[in-house]
């Protein structure tokens, strides 16, 4: 029995020693596995946003590299900017787009229409396919369903569910939304005899909306202009906004339309009686420039993102810059353009690990001796590189 116990003890000691020897053979403790994320830094991201960058990987998504750039150049992120950046990541991580603090108006419309419609209920397909790139775009946004739901309730109160005018209105609105998926949707019904003014005005607006969702911009603009010119129409202000909105949509397909769109947008912004739609029209203006002059806008956003005082706009600017930068092809022309400004230049080098980038990053670092290019040079360096001098002199910061 004693021999058996001795054997067990010896076996356990040997097993332990063997494990220790195995561990010694590794340069670090093998009992601790260290993993990293390729596309984003360690979580929680708030630490990274707050300035604890850790090891900066070239594979990180552009937004993280922009934040790193701000820290490496000494611009940093104040509390307001950090909050904006955290909101940006919140936008990205939620499965439902945006903040989803408002009701689901598409769902709301489906419910109310089901109550009164005689046709089979179904969910409206809100996205349409862009046949040039196989991506789906939101064609009928939540606001369209919100306005339709409120209008339905109002018309119901006015004439009741049994009224042929109400039924005609509902059929018309369903026909409008049947175009949301970009297919050949239903046609609008004819107006019943003796139709009241409200139904005529609504139908004129529905006609514009139908063209709008079908992607027939010129027809939509013509129809909305007529509505905007009717002083009695409750839709006259909204129709003016939709004229301005239909054009930037066209710009996407034909950038030459940009000047015309800008003219229309600036026209709305000059009219003080249209003040209630100035906010969304300013957003259209920005979107128009992003589509029509992407390089120019990218450089403008890059300058903004490289500077302090972004407390109120960093979230949106980061969205737009990342979309533009990630979309830009990496052709020699774009590279040349990127080099006009430090941030896109640095990002291009960080994200393109090849010999040319390595050489370029090293040269820039040798010229400037700042942290950004040191990081880029090290990220691109390979073991066989010769002449990489690492006697870095940190730049003096105030």
């Amino acid at each position, binding site marked *: 029995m004693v021999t058996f116990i001795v054997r067990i003890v010896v076996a356990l000691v040997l097993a332990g020693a063997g494990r220790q020897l195995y561990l010694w053979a590794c340069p670090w403790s093998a009992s601790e596995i260290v993993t990293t994320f390729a596309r984003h830094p360690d979580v929680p991201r708030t630490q990274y946003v707050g300035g604890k960058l850790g090891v900066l990987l070239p594979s990180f998504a552009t937004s993280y590299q922009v934040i790193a750039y701000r820290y490496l150049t000494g611009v940093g992120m104040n509390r307001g900017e950090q909050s904006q950046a955290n909101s940006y990541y919140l936008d990205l991580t939620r499965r439902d787009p945006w903040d989803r603090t408002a009701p689901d108006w598409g769902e709301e419309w489906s419910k109310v229409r089901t109550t009164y419609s005689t046709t089979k209920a179904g*969910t409206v397909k809100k996205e349409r396919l862009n046949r040039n790139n*196989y*991506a*789906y775009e939101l064609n009928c946004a939540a606001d369209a369903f919100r306005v339709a739901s409120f209008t339905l309730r109002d018309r119901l109160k006015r004439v009741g569910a049994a009224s042929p005018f109400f039924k005609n209105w509902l059929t018309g609105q369903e026909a409008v939304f049947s175009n949301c*998926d970009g297919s050949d949707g239903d046609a609008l019904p004819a107006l019943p005899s003796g139709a009241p003014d409200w139904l005529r005005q609504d139908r004129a607006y529905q006609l514009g909306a139908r063209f709008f969702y079908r992607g027939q911009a010129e027809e939509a603009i013509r129809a909305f202009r007529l509505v905007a010119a009717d002083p009695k129409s409750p839709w006259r202000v909204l129709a003016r906004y939709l004229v301005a909105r239909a054009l930037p949509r066209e710009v996407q397909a034909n950038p030459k339309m940009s000047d015309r769109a800008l003219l229309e947008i600036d026209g709305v912004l000059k009219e003080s009686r249209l003040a209630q739609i100035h906010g969304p029209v300013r957003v259209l203006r920005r979107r128009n420039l992003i589509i029509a002059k992407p390089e120019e806008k990218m450089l403008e956003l890059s300058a903004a993102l490289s500077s302090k005082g972004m407390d109120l706009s960093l979230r949106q600017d980061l969205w737009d810059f990342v979309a533009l930068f990630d979309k830009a092809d990496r052709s020699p022309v774009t590279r040349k353009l990127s080099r006009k400004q430090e941030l896109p230049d640095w990002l291009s080098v960080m994200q393109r690990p090849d010999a040319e980038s390595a050489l370029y990053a090293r040269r820039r670092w040798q010229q400037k001796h700042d942290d950004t290019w040191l990081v880029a040079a090290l990220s691109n360096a390979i073991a066989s590189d010769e002449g990489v001098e690492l006697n870095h002199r940190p730049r003096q910061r105030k």
Partner: protein
Amino acid sequence: MQWFWAKSILLACVSSGLAAEPPALMLWAWEQRADLRFLAGRTDVGVAYLAATAFISEAGVRVQYRGVPMLAPEGMFRMPVVRIEGRNMPKDRNALFNLCLRLIGDGGSGALQIDFDVPMKLRPLYEELVGDLRKTFGNKLHLSMTVLAGWCEKPWFVKMPVDEHVVMLFRMGKAGRDLAGRLEREKGFATPACRESLGYSTDEKLAPKLDTTRRYWFSPKPWSPLLFASLSR
């Protein structure tokens, strides 16, 4: 009646003859921007792009459509892929079928791939969906389904009326190493349905390159000429 006509028009649009076969080399284009225009003129390569993800739950089916561009050269075979995620039976079972109809119509190639790591309790739903698609399109649709490598041990799916089973030989989890060793020794799966099309990933070298009719490649990085050239190495 309206639905009947919609289906009839879709059928007429899809194809007037038999479904077109995908080429022997297919690239998966997942949830990131894909620019495959560098493959212009290569009719031997096609793309299977994630067109939509359907999240199913008791509450219903929520669809997230592809939001990033997929640029492919003229003439390249393009197959939309629908990924289905979820573990519970949705109350509206027609929604999945309607989504597939839409993607087939939008894709325009008469092909669809379904990627569904289906839990056992939802297999009847999957079988019903595939059966309905086959009934609707007959042989005018090339219907492809992805298959987890582990399923090939007990191939419950072989009777489903699809044209292609694509066995995914990557991200195989804990059992992956053992399975890869066995495949290496036995030169493939015993089940014929698990030999026809095989899926690999550019960042994994675990699974052996077996003889097969068609290979699919997944890449966590965007496709580039360099990455594509590495497939033949």
